[in-house]
């Protein structure tokens, strides 16, 4: 049975029912970076605005290694990745019981690709993904590990092992997503840059296509026209390319450039791209040779996000700039509605629980912003006391966030 609580009505079809095939999703899963529909929004969830060591922290568990990757939630399991060792070449996948926090299983692998990263990053930077019956763990070393929910290895790929120049000495962070029975992976860097669609059952490439030779840390997202199949959106310094997830064939392109750090976000009928600030696009209805370039609905260079990706809730887009200022704008017009200064800096992308946005800054401070009124209001300030660079996961009324050393469940 599919619990719709975490899914916006429009996007359940493209991203879960069509995307996650033949699965049995129990509870309100959070299956990949920014959740099932890649929106970061859990519309019906209620997360406590305040918490402390003695209040609203259900459990806190140790992790064996570093990680900028976010947790994912699959039924009763909370899955995280980590990397450890002097060279960060030990790759971990861990499953915890969602209720108790007890470790259910842990599996380790050796990195087969290069593991050097900027000190702020680590090899476990991309958030894993799941189709509800498999876990796809991806690492900066470009190793892809597919496990069943019991931790049994189904397949693995060493994408740098196979394509030896595919790496970035600063580290890779793009989080893969699942569309149907294809895992979309971007391996984009200065030397050997590509995206690939891997068969979720075997790990073999359905397609592999060259991408701009420039370091890129953005993650793919999903677009679907009203009556068509979902498309994978691949962002890079060149812009955004929409590809058929099963064939990799390009359906349309936006070629006016885009950021290589924050990722695009989809609204009900447009795409908001971190490009020249923020640019709203309406992709055409046709595909292939008949496809029109996306219509530019608006652009505002004041809405350029910092590291965090933008998030859309109830017709508003929320963007945090490099100075830590949160701006709310109308997704239809781009008009800036209000601003609130937050305590940054931020690496994590915010998530939304109901009418609240939750921002974790790099010092581990969490600011909860109520967005139900005419102006944003900070209604909670908390800290976990450790560096947080990862994006939280929300499932039902529970939030999961991890540092290099710990994983927390925050819930009443």
């Amino acid at each position, binding site marked *: 049975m599919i619990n719709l609580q975490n899914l916006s009505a429009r996007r359940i079809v493209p991203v879960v029912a069509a995307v996650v095939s033949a699965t049995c999703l129990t509870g309100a899963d959070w299956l990949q970076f920014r959740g099932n529909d890649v929106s970061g929004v859990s519309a019906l969830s209620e997360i406590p605005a305040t918490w402390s060591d003695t209040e609203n922290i259900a459990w806190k568990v140790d992790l064996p290694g570093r990680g900028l990757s976010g947790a994912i939630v699959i039924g009763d399991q909370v899955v995280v990745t980590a990397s450890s060792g*002097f060279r960060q070449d030990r790759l971990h996948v861990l499953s915890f019981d969602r209720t108790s926090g007890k470790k259910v299983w842990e599996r380790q692998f050796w990195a087969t690709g*290069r593991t050097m*990263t900027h000190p702020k990053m680590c090899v476990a930077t991309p958030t894993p993904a799941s189709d509800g019956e498999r876990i796809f763990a991806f690492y900066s070393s470009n190793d892809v590990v597919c496990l069943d929910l019991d931790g049994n290895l189904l397949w*693995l*790929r060493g994408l740098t092992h196979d394509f030896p120049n595919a790496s*970035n*000495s600063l580290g890779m962070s793009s989080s893969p997503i699942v569309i149907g029975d294809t895992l979309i992976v971007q391996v984009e860097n200065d030397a050997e840059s590509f995206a690939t669609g891997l068969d979720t059952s075997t790990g073999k490439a359905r397609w592999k296509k060259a991408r701009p030779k420039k370091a890129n840390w953005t993650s793919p997202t999903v677009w679907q026209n009203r009556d068509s199949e979902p498309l994978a959106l691949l962002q890079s310094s060149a812009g955004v390319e929409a590809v058929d997830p099963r064939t990799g064939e390009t359906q349309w392109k936006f070629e006016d450039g885009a950021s290589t750090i924050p990722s695009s976000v989809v609204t009900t009928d447009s795409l908001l791209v971190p490009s020249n600030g923020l640019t709203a696009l309406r992709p055409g209805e046709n595909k292939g040779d008949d496809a029109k370039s996306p219509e530019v609905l608006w652009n505002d260079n004041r809405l350029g996000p910092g590291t965090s990706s933008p998030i859309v809730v109830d017709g508003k887009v929320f963007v945090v700039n490099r100075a830590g200022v949160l701006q709310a704008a109308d997704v239809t017009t781009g008009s800036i509605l209000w601003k609130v200064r937050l305590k940054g800096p931020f690496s994590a992308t915010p998530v939304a629980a109901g009418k609240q946005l939750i921002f974790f800054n790099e010092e581990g401070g969490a600011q909860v912003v109520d967005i139900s009124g005419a102006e944003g209001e900070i209604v909670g300030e908390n800290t976990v006391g450790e560096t947080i660079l990862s994006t939280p996961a929300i499932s039902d009324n529970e939030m999961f966030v991890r540092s290099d050393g710990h994983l927390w469940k925050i819930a009443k």
Partner: protein
Amino acid sequence: MPIYRCSFAAVIAFSMIASLSAADLSSQIAAIRKVSREGQGNEAAAAAVRNLSNAAASDLLQILGGFEKASPLAANYLRNSVETIADRHLAAGKPLPVKQLETFVQERTNDPRARRLAYEVLAKVDSTIGDRLIPAMLLDPSPEFRRDAVQRLVAEAESLGKDSADKAKQVYRQALTGATDSDLAKKISESLKKLGDEVDLVSHFGFLTDWRIVGPFDNHDFVGFDTAYAPEEELDFAAKLKAKEGEVSWGEITTSDEFGIVDIAKSVAPHKGAVMYLATFYEAAADRNVEFRFGTPNAWKLWVNGEFLFGRDEYHRGMAIDQYRVPAKLKAGKNVILLKLCQNEQTDDWAQRYQIQIRVCDPSGVAVLPVKSKSRTTSDARPQKNQPQRLTAQAEGASE
């Protein structure tokens, strides 16, 4: 016959649990070992992992034996099998073949990855194993075991009081013999320096410090990386070569940097949009496999004895010791090493470095010094089967 096979036979005889037949076990392991590039063999390997997940604890030894010369991909499949089997037995309160596993760990001719995995399985049931085994692993073929042993000695040295300076020096010196990770070697070197001892880290790591150099050739708009300039066609150190700014000749560059960094921007010129070639000779005592390990923020290509080995077209994304590892085969006698180092045209402050750090070592990271070196740095820490283990090995070809 490898030790693990003997151990496996003993465990089979001992086991009370029905295991896969030896033939079945071998065929599953063989299926995993066939996994290769681009997902080839993934389905068969996954099926084998599924079949192995029901194997008996006694089967662990044979699976660990399957790591020998397994590819990195296959090793990860095998690792998952071992973890799955061990966890299942531990969760059910069933015993593991601890004696045989410990024997497997201690036999240095076994695959280092498999030995480390067996050790980690044992550590789940035996909290004393680190204290018992690690101190003897200072020169182990496994970098992870060596690191553990070095860390113990560093901690021991650090715990000694000021009135035990001589003892501390001795312990640090001992620790250094096994240190191939830069953080530990640096820490030891700095500690010894405070105690009045100097450490030759260049020899310790096997950095190449003396080069001939020529350039700059053109790399405007990145054209240089794929352009074969004269040194790639013929290595004639007496030749005058047409370059970016006119005719150039080969010169020399030597570094005295503690970590062997050859800094072209400082020692030659802060060229931009440039290609420089560096060449050196390496005298090997015998044919052998080595690794060239690099650190550089610049694009590069490497040739050994005229054979192109690898190149990387990336600029200013960071630099670290052992950033790149390039396997190579050296021949006995003189070997010619040619490097192409490219600088781009970025003007940012953080994009001005034009340097490289390169060393020659064995696959475990232990320096392999040329014949004429006088260093006592160890090498070939992994002993050959049926040969006595060397606790203080001499670098291959090194002379006193």
